[in-house]
């Protein structure tokens, strides 16, 4: 076994060339141990989603390498070949856009089960129902199409679909930013349950409240670079970088107040 389940080594991603060249991710290294929840936090345009896509095998890095269980993920134009493919799954930001509007929640999840397990229709639907129930979607709601579900329910269907492959790593790109506060609490409770079951989670978010609640370690990203990283609690209590301080001071409510007080003192 490799020391890290998922590891990014000196990853850079560049889009375009010449005058339109954009360096979205610059020389970022990141590690994820088995069963660990880590966070990537930053503003829009900081490159956090691009990095998540690299980790998910959807974006070939310009430089650097991703390792899953010690094995390089990208082999030529292919990524996550063989057994590794099912082990890293992703949940996207927009529950409205990431589900097929024509498929019921049940069919969407059952389809994923069929692809990964190569089972028949009945078996896959049974497993899909089980997964959905675990996500708090009753059978009655499972046979509804996405437009009939609330944002929170849709996001839980997306999580069920990602879990259908029995992954060891779940990459979640802003999973809570498009849903209500109470739905957010539901989803986070679910994530916590999944962590207890041994799943590793990479949570990408600009919501520092969510990051603080769920993750143990966090990488703070700005303009494609990790400006600070470490134990979440330590970073929240004692941020070193000016940018992290500013980010913390911007949180509305209790958390921000403490950070603002510190920022003003300095």
């Amino acid at each position: 076994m490799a020391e890290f389940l998922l590891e990014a080594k000196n990853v850079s991603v560049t889009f375009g060339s010449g005058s339109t060249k954009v360096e979205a991710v610059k020389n970022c290294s990141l590690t994820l141990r088995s069963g660990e929840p880590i966070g990537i936090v930053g503003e829009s345009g900081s490159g956090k989603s691009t990095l998540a896509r690299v980790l998910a095998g959807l974006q070939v890095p310009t430089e650097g390498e991703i390792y899953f269980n010690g094995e390089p993920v990208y082999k030529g134009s292919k990524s996550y070949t063989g057994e590794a493919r099912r082990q890293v799954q992703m949940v996207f930001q927009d529950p409205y856009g990431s589900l097929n509007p024509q498929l019921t929640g049940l069919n969407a999840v059952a389809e994923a089960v069929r692809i990964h397990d190569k089972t028949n229709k009945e078996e896959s639907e049974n497993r899909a129902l089980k997964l959905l129930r675990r996500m708090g979607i009753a059978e009655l709601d499972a046979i509804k199409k996405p437009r009939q579900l609330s944002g929170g329910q849709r996001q839980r269907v997306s999580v069920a679909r990602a879990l259908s492959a029995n992954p060891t790593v779940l990459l979640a790109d802003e999973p809570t930013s498009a849903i209500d506060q109470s739905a957010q609490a539901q989803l986070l409770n679910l994530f916590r349950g999944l962590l207890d079951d041994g799943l590793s989670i990479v949570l990408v978010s600009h919501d520092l409240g969510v990051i603080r609640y769920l993750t143990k370690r966090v990488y703070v990203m700005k303009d494609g670079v990790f400006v600070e990283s470490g134990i979440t609690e330590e970073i929240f209590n004692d941020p070193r970088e000016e940018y992290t301080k500013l980010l913390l001071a911007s949180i509305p409510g209790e958390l921000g107040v403490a950070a603002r007080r510190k920022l003003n003192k300095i």
Partner: protein
Amino acid sequence: MSTPNKPLIQIKDVVIGIPHKRRPTLIIVDKANFDINYGEMVGIVGESGSGKTMICRTMIGTLERRGGKIMSGEVIFEGQNLAKANDATWKSLRGKSIGYVPQSALAGPNPVLIIEAQLAEALRNTGDTKNIKARSKELLDLVKIRRVDTVMKQYPYQLSGGMRQRVMIACALATSPKLLIADEPTTGLDVTVQSQIMDLLKEIRSTTGTAIVLISHDLALIDEVCDRVVVMHAGATVEVGSVKELEKPRHPYTIALNSSRIDVAKPGSELVTIKGNAPSVGEWNPGCRFAERCSIVQSDCKVGNHPVLIGASGAHQSACIHTELLERI
């Protein structure tokens, strides 16, 4: 400065429905009640579908264009009942006494107009067509846009989300409105930008004395910037009070909303969630519409009409008929 503690706009027993040719009218807001005083900053909070945006539209008179209708109740703005106002009346108010900042900053500005033209259009609305350019610059200064001369010549796509929202606020402020309505003005913007926009709104309030209505589902945000809070659930106002008063909520929904807040939760602890989903429009049961999700529900909660706010306007009001049981939560 305007007179404090005098209502600028009053929403009284407002019921909003969507009429349908064949089916019966669908009621989407039933009994909304609250006042907004001169120079006050009020937050309206609630889940999606609770009717926040609908109430907002009654205050700017765009309800009918979207197929809605005020079935009963009064919307009193400076002594004038607007519930049945015609287009001409609204035209004289909207974009003049009442300004509006839309939800989606990215789609808000007209994409084919440069910022200068955008602001000029808003300024011409005032009837005073002199010195438009100078006044535009003043407005951009007011919303703290730097490099004003460059920005004036730019198209919306050349600006960041935060800048675009500032431009929208500048447009809304063009006519020095008495009431500014901001419908989730920072949804989709970064936290740092959000805190800048909030600081800006606070500052505008204190320099111009404009009353501001901030619609949001982020309780922490509302707590921080507003004086008073209106809580909505399934089309009804369930609690109204000052931010201080709402630290001790008197409605089970507000209590539940408060405890599902992530910023105060201990990392890794079980988050409190609100049971079930908010009842969909058209599927409302008799009595209190929160009853199905409430932990202290009693048998008399499920009969009759939805309870109205109890208490005098301006005081801490709650629509819960069993506030004596709240300690059990």
